[in-house]
Structure formats: C-alpha cells, structure tokens
C-alpha cells in the first residue's frame, strides 16, 4: 500500500460517494462544474469518473494545462532562441507545434541543441557545463513551477552564471479563472486546482464566491478527492451557498507556501498583459523577470519579439480551453491529430483534454 495514494483510490468508496451524489442531485436541474486543472481532467478520464456520476453532473474541462494555453507565438519564440542558444525545457514542450508544423523536437532533428530537463536546476547544470555557450531555460507553468524557476534564477545570480537566461512564460491561475467567468461560461461551480493553492493559498479565490457568486472547492487529485469535491459542490449549490472550500486540507494550508510566495515576489513581476491560447490577451495574467534580475531575461538578452501567430485551421483547442467545445467536436481528433503527431497543444500533454480523451478511449 502506498500511503496517501491507495486510500484515495478505493473503487468501492468511489461508488458510495457516487450514490450519495446521485441521491443529492435535484432532478429538475443540471450541475455544470469546471475542473480548472488538467491534472483533474487526467484523473477524471483515467479513473472513468464520468461513468460513475449521474447525468445531471456535467464536467467541463478548463484551461489549467500550461502546455495547452501557451500561444503559438511563444513556441515560435523558443524555436527562434534554439538557433542562438542551447534551449532546455520540460519534455512536454518538445512536441508542441509552433507555426508551420515546426516544434522544438523538429528543431533538434534539424541540428539545434534542445534538451529535455526534469527540473530548472538541470538547466542550470547545463549552463555550468557549457560556459562557452548561451543556455536558455524555456520556462512554462502555473504557480507550481514558478517558484523552482525563481530559485534557478536566484542561483544563477549567486554563481554569476552569465551564460544562463530564462524565457519566462509563467502564468497565473486566478486571472485565467476570472477570464473564464467573464467570458460568460455557464458554470455552477469550480473544482479548484490544489497544487497551485499549496503555493498561493486559498484566499486568491475569494472573488469566485464574492464577485461571481459561484462555489469553488479546492480538490486533491486522487479519484476520491475529485468525487468528494463534486459532492461538496452539489451540496453548496443545493443549499444556495457559494463558498471557497478546501477538500485537500492534507496538502494545502490556507495561506499556502510563504517561502515560495516571497521568492516569486522577489524574482518576478507581473506583465501588463499576456496572450493565452483560447483565452486571448488577459491583463496581469503572467509573470516576467523583475528589474533586479533582468540580466537573466532571455527576451531582453536576445531582443526577442514575440508575435501572435494563428493556430492550425482545424484545431479547436481555443474553444476547448474556454470550456465551450469538447475534443470530439474537432474534425481531426484521432485522425490527423494524435499524441504521436499532435496538431494542437491540447493533444500533447497528458493533462490536455484531447490527449486525455484519446488515451483513455472515452470518446467512442
């Protein structure tokens, strides 16, 4: 038995929670809940949770997959950098298609030095080992991957590692959720990303209940966590409450991780606006490297100008990320577009809605 895992995967208990949800739902209505985070999308498909739930519960996949929301222009930016420097990045970023079906993977096949890393510290190590070359860490992710990037930048400064820089694409969860709610998505509640809350705490979601009058439950990633969170949402909806609740109290403290927050404050500042795939330009929704560390900003060092580029014509990732369409609405899903040969970003990472649909065969 793996502690903190097996206890949260018991199929018998899952069915009990499902039964309780089925008794609680009111026959005259539907409950539309968005799971913001791709980790939840993955869990829902992997464990077939939709099959356990009564039809009144509609799960809508959200934009919480960092690979999926990065617009093509930023992928093109990384490919451009790979012509001038060693580019280090997380494995998922290798296959994301940029313009003209180009990807970092293809750039590497054509001779660029692109390396997959597990962690930002590995990118630092590449810089130490290649002092005569420029090394750029192509950093992406929400608040969970941001503090590690901050540590790497700070460490580079301590070591005076002048050949290291970061192409920063870190984005923020709360503005994206606000963007979704503003876009008029019809939602009755939100399954909130919890590892993000392990960093930023729970307070940043107060607006969901206060301004938009929607319930949100910060949920763990095991199947029973997701089921329990859905039950908590149903109960809130039924009693007319709209609160921020924490199902994942074993890993998330109300205030989050103060040390990680301080680091992010020190090394980054908010961008005025950032373009997201599907959600468009959103104000104060992403971070850039702060003035005190600007010598490590690859965009400044290489004078990189990111331009907007359009997605593959057939790709519906944009609508899928806004919760308006589902992967099965895409004509090329599973045909021209597969995880081996993705046309859009939602098919790349296992947290992407298209990849999850595809891998777990729940599209038939």
């Amino acid at each position, binding site marked *: 038995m*793996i*502690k*903190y*895992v097996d*206890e*949260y995967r*018991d199929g018998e*208990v899952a069915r*009990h*929670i499902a*039964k*309780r949800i089925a008794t609680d739902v009111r026959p005259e209505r539907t409950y539309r809940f968005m799971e913001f*985070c*791709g*980790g939840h999308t*993955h869990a829902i498909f992997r464990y077939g949770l939709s099959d356990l739930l009564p039809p009144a519960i509609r799960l809508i996949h959200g934009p919480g*997959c*960092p*690979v999926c929301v990065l617009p093509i222009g930023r992928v093109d930016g990384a490919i451009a950098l790979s012509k001038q420097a060693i580019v280090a990045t*997380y*494995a*998922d970023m290798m296959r994301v298609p940029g313009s003209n079906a180009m990807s970092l993977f293809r750039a590497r096949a054509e001779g660029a030095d692109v390396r997959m890393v*597990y*962690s*930002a*510290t*590995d990118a630092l190590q590449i810089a130490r080992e290649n002092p005569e070359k420029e090394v750029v860490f192509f950093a992406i*992710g*929400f608040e*969970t*991957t941001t*503090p*590690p990037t901050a*540590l790497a930048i700070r460490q580079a400064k301590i070591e005076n590692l002048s050949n290291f820089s970061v192409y920063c694409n870190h984005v923020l969860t709360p503005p994206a959720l606000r963007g979704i709610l503003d876009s008029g998505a019809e939602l009755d509640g939100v399954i909130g990303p919890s*590892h993000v809350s*392990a*960093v930023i705490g729970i307070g940043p979601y107060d607006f969901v209940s206060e301004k938009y009058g929607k319930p949100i439950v910060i949920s*763990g*990633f095991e199947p*029973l*966590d997701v089921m*329990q969170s859905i039950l908590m949402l149903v109960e809130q909806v039924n009693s007319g409450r709209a609160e921020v609740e924490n*199902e*994942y*109290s*074993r*890993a*998330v*403290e109300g205030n989050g*991780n103060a*040390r*990680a927050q301080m*680091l992010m404050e020190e090394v980054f500042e908010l961008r005025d606006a950032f373009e997201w795939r599907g959600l468009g330009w959103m104000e104060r929704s992403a971070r850039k490297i702060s003035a005190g560390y600007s010598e490590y900003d690859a965009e400044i060092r290489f004078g990189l100008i990111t331009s907007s580029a359009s997605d593959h014509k057939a790709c519906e990732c944009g609508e899928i990320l806004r919760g308006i369409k589902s992967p099965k609405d895409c004509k090329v899903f599973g045909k021209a577009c597969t995880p081996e040969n993705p046309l859009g970003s939602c098919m790349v*990472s*296992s*947290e992407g809605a298209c990849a999850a649909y595809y891998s777990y065969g729940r599209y038939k």
Partner: protein
Amino acid sequence: MCLAIPARIVALLEKSRALVELGGVRKEISVELLEEAQVGDYVIVHVGYALSKLDEEEAMKTIALFSEMDGE
C-alpha cells in the same frame, strides 16, 4: 508535466536536497521551498521540488469523511 503524487523523504542530503521514494522509485529532489523537512515526511513534488508537506491528521479526517458515505 504537472501530475504529482506524494513522495516520502528517505534521506536528507546536502544543500537542501533530499532523496525521496515515489511509487517504488528513488529520486533526488530539492526541499528548498519548505520551511523544514525530515526523514519520513510525505511531500508533494513538482518538477523536482517539494511544494508542501502532507499532514497526517488532515489526511485521516478526509478519509473519515469518505467513509461517512458508507451505508448511507
């Protein structure tokens, strides 16, 4: 890249690094983002960094909540 499962710290190493066991596999990670870490702690690991510790008491409470569902 964001999927994470709980890992158990099996040894503390130099420079805020630690050896963890994660589903039977051992891996070196950083505990620099934690206030403090001890052997035996369970942590949530993302891209090579422990982001938070798991609280046993809270974990028990959640499990108890699940079993309240039993027989209802």
